[in-house]
């Protein structure tokens, strides 16, 4: 990958200071690894903008640029906004100077996301018996043109098949099964809740803690006070999955997977 560039694309936010932080952190981590000649990030709602990304990778050494959306799933942003703003014509786009831009699958599609969800669950609730535990993966739900709910269901199914926990459930903020109903949805003494989001923000700091029934829902205090004793159960609440440092490796894998997938296609 010494002649390759990596562009990590995030959503960013005009109101939430934590939205882009994981993407920046993943970028720095991948830069340090030296795996690519140049590593950059760009955002829809922050700087550098997606349009600014057109100015990166001009140093002369970069032949191929891998574009990896730091998104949980395909959706409006990966299918419409990103290609439009960075002028991609398909999976492979050739720029006037001959540079090739390769549009990879979003990081949430990486199959190791399942392992990271399990790692998160183990870390937030160390030493508890999984046979007495329900794992709840919480997603937003009802987002326009967004398949994150589908992706969350897929992850729950995969974790369920491993048979580790007494139960594994999906829950959503805005559609049933509602995360607010967690006490009715679960029957085990321990409940572990992992937000299936790319970054922490109002949803994970405030909205979900309130829906879970926590009273002290300010800032990241919620993550330090595990377990929360609520409805006679021990509730463990994790940070958004995308803040996991391992996500940086998943981003790199998405770039590698692009070449593997497209080689197979050209042979077939």
């Amino acid at each position, binding site marked *: 990958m010494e002649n390759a560039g990596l562009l990590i694309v995030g959503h960013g936010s005009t109101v939430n200071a934590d939205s882009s*932080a994981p993407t920046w952190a993943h970028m720095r981590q991948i830069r340090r690894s030296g795996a690519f000649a140049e590593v950059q990030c760009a955002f829809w709602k922050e*700087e550098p*903008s997606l*349009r*600014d990304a057109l*100015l*990166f990778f001009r140093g002369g050494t970069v032949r191929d640029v891998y574009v990896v959306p730091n998104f949980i799933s395909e959706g409006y942003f990966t299918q*419409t*906004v990103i290609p439009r703003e960075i002028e991609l014509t398909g999976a492979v786009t050739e720029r006037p100077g001959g540079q090739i831009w390769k549009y990879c699958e979003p990081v949430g599609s990486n199959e190791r996301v399942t392992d990271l969800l399990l790692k998160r669950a183990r870390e937030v609730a160390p030493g508890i018996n999984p046979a007495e535990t329900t794992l709840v993966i919480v997603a937003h739900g009802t987002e326009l043109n967004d398949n994150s709910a589908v992706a969350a269901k897929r992850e729950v199914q995969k974790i369920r098949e491993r048979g580790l926990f007494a139960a594994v459930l999906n829950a959503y903020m805005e559609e049933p099964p509602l995360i607010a109903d967690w006490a009715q949805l679960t029957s085990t003494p321990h409940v572990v809740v992992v937000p299936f989001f790319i970054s922490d923000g109002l949803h994970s700091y405030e909205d979900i803690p309130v829906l879970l029934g926590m009273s002290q829902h300010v800032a990241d205090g919620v993550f330090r006070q595990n377990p929360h004793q609520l409805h006679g159960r021990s509730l463990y609440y994790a940070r958004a999955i995308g803040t996991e440092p391992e996500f940086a490796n998943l981003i790199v894998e998405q770039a590698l997977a692009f070449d593997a997938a497209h080689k197979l296609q050209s042979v077939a």
Partner: protein
Amino acid sequence: MTSEFEQTLEQFGWLIGEVAVLRSAAFELRHRDDQSRGGEELERFTADAADQIARFDDARNYRPLKTAPNLRHGWRIVCTSAADAEAAVEQLYPGRLAALRAWQRDELSTTALRQTLNRQTGMYRIASRVTDAALNELVGRFCRSDGGCLRTILWKRDGSGAAPSTLLPEAKFNPAYDQTNHGERAVPLLCQEACNLLVAAARAVAKGE
């Protein structure tokens, strides 16, 4: 050999936006206002943590626009090399060095505001309905260096080549002008295309908000 970053500073001045690059044994970045303060008075950061400085203003409010003239004070970034200092500048003013380099090579294409607005889809599509008069007022207010944004605007209003706003001074379009209004030699922060914040503001105007 001097790096491209140092060459840029030599050429334009050791200031960029509200940041001063100090050259002693290594490089040190500070707020321009903090240049003469004692190092021990300032909170010390590494280049890797520069995005934390960029994220909040002095009142700890989130800064959605990194080129807004509200960079916080009271810090210094001690850098180990020119590359380290460059990485810090890239986090304080993301994408601006890349834009400058493209501009220096005469490769920076600019996009007229109307073109940016007309390209929008989804919730931003309505932004294209803003009238020229309303855009003139909006850009004049939103992009002004004094309280809005420190970038030098290179784009036009539309295909006619009209200025983005008659309310902005000529200097707003001149890369040689120090947008902080201190009259010093500084690296310009170029704006080759309207940012998403301006598009969002145009949407609000179109919706009558």
